[in-house]
């Protein structure tokens, strides 16, 4: 084990290198670019034995990655915001093809107007594409999740692509100390990729041909089963990872001081780490509050939320928005806990478009619920300025 002190993107790239992908396709976009720059350097230096493809768009990134994965090799790429949006068709392609691709998306506000700051709408807008989705809140968690993600994606019960998202700049460009394990241990946890199927001229099959309605629903159902398997395997593989490497970041959800809590904050990504500070401060003031940090939103942790929500007030802090509906976490949580005894879900839209969300903001949002000044059926836009109409 060695200690690395660097920005989140370089830490993530180091994890990717240790997973030994064989084909990497890349297209630059801020603030992800450091990841693919670093991987290009590894390949040129001989520190990573892989084919590195500089392609001409994100749509092509995912097409090249899907094709390489279809031939039966381990693949990786990274993107951000507009790039992820441009990939949308191919994200469905990867999901429906059951290809175990791993990708990092650095959450960045979608334009116009151009912005570089973190907002989770880019990832959340891809929630229906069949990708398992992690949100991580530190460089160490990013490192560990990359290694776990390949193992999970390639598991024959899962066989789905995995997206790992983290916040622009607060994670991607912030230096943090990270423990780097030995390569031998990574190799032992993550053996070489054995594809469940691949295109091979010795066994010619047509992949992706016309599929009638007689089969399509069943195809989606098997993907659903893959997601259900992931629900079980994420905590299991997390524990196996802990045994080997000594770190466990949680299953689908990381619970923090929830045991005796009356109120539980729900947050993701870097808002999740900020919320831990808020919980500590509110606890010091005597409030019985905890945090459920959603590490995984596909599959959605319905069962965990039903358990956590029993006789508690949940406060969803969404840094994403489906305009005309609201924050995804708020809505999906409400639907998950429907009928759960004594559970109300309060919602805030905060930091949408990248505005900073501090622990003080989170404390104020929570206090408003504690004092009865918020309603569970009204989502509040936190820190909203006067706009002068629509």
């Amino acid at each position, binding site marked *: 084990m060695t200690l690395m002190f660097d920005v989140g993107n370089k830490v993530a790239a180091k994890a990717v290198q240790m997973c030994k992908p064989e084909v990497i396709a890349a297209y630059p976009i801020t603030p992800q670019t450091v990841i693919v720059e670093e991987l290009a350097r590894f390949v040129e230096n001989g520190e990573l034995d892989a084919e590195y493809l500089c392609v001409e768009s994100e*749509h092509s990134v995912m097409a090249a990655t899907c094709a390489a*994965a279809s*031939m039966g090799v381990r693949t990786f790429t990274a993107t951000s915001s507009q790039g992820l949006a441009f990939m949308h068709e191919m994200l469905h392609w990867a999901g429906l093809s059951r290809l175990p691709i791993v990708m990092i998306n650095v959450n960045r506000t979608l334009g116009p107007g151009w912005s570089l700051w973190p907002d989770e709408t880019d990832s959340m807008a891809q929630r229906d594409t069949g990708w398992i989705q992690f949100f991580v809140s530190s460089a160490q968690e990013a490192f560990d999740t990359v290694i776990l993600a390949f193992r999970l994606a390639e598991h024959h019960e899962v066989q789905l692509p995995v997206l790992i998202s983290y916040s622009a700049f607060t994670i991607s460009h912030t230096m943090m100390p990270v423990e780097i394990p030995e390569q031998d241990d990574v190799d032992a946890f993550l053996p070489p990729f054995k594809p469940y199927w691949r295109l091979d001229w010795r066994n010619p099959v047509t*992949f992706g041909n016309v599929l009638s309605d007689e089969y399509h629903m069943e195809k989606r159902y098997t993907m659903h089963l893959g997601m259900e398997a992931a629900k079980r395997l994420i905590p299991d593989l997390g524990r196996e990872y802990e045994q080997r490497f000594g770190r466990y970041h949680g299953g689908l959800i990381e619970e923090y001081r929830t045991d005796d809590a009356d109120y539980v904050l729900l947050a993701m990504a870097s808002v999740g780490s900020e919320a831990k500070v808020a919980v500590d401060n509110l606890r010091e003031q005597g409030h019985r509050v905890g945090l459920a940090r959603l590490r995984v939103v596909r599959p959605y942790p319905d069962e965990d939320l039903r358990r956590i929500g029993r006789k508690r007030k949940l406060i969803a802090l969404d840094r994403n928005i489906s305009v005309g509906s609201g924050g995804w976490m708020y809505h999906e949580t409400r639907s998950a806990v429907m009928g759960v005894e004594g559970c109300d879900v309060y919602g805030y839209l905060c930091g949408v478009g990248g505005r900073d969300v501090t622990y003080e903001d989170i404390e104020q949002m929570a206090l408003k619920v504690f004092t009865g000044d918020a309603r569970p059926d009204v989502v509040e836009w936190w820190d909203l300025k006067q706009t002068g109409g629509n």
Partner: protein
Amino acid sequence: MAIKDLPREELMHPGAGSCPACTDLLTLRMTLKALGPKTVLVTPASCTASVACGYPKTPFGVPVLTMAFAAGGAAASGAVAALHRLGEDDVNVVVWAGDGGTYDIGLQSMSGAMERGTNFIFVCYNNEIYSNTGVQRSGATPFGAWTTTTWKGKVDQRKDMPAIMLAHRLPYVATASASYIEDLYRKVQKAASIRGPKYLEFHIPCAPGWRFPMERTIEMGRLAVETGAWALFEADDGKVEFNLRSKQILDGKTQRKPIEEYLELQGRFAHLFRPERDEEALAGIQQFIDREWERYKQLAACGMSVG
């Protein structure tokens, strides 16, 4: 090679749901004969992807990766990279795309694959329309042609995609026709023998899309060449040579037939002849073909620097 000497092995089997007299599957069958079984076919959305396949059956004797419309070239880059990792550099990777998947939506990723030196063959089977979606105009549709998005005839001329590919400085660019199958076969084999990105474009008359009787399909392809509406040539390392009838035309040994002989047999140009002749349009089309051949002479003389 004479037709009787072509390999007996079929890698494109009967049973595909194409229209009768389909030149897409005719040229694909010949292409696979020329390439052999160590081939991976990438098929972006097109007639091939929809008529040739229907789970759980397939007419193909080679593995096929169906691909999104825009992504043929990029998928080839990924497949070739993976095959290299697997130590299978000797497997042919062939993108089989229609003119929409080449001239229009597929242009960017094809251009990218060419520029990054992917070792593959991109085949554009050009029937000058979006035939699979019901005969809409594409960037390859010639001026004046009726389509279901140009009811009064297309008002713009086609692009010159082989020239765009020549400008990518490829080691091999060739055009061929469904009606000159031995020439097509030779060009596929030639492309397979060269490392790097190769571009082939096949002119394939489409009886339902162009509105002519299906039994005249091969004749229609020959007329396209004889009138100069289509030219057969190849550029080997940038050196351009015209082939067969097109070479005779270029060398002045044969006159081009008037373009009207080709147009008047096709329902898509009927409005240029009936109820009255559109002299201006017909003269314009002939002038366009004449100018194209002036350009071909320059192309044959100068070629294109490669590498």
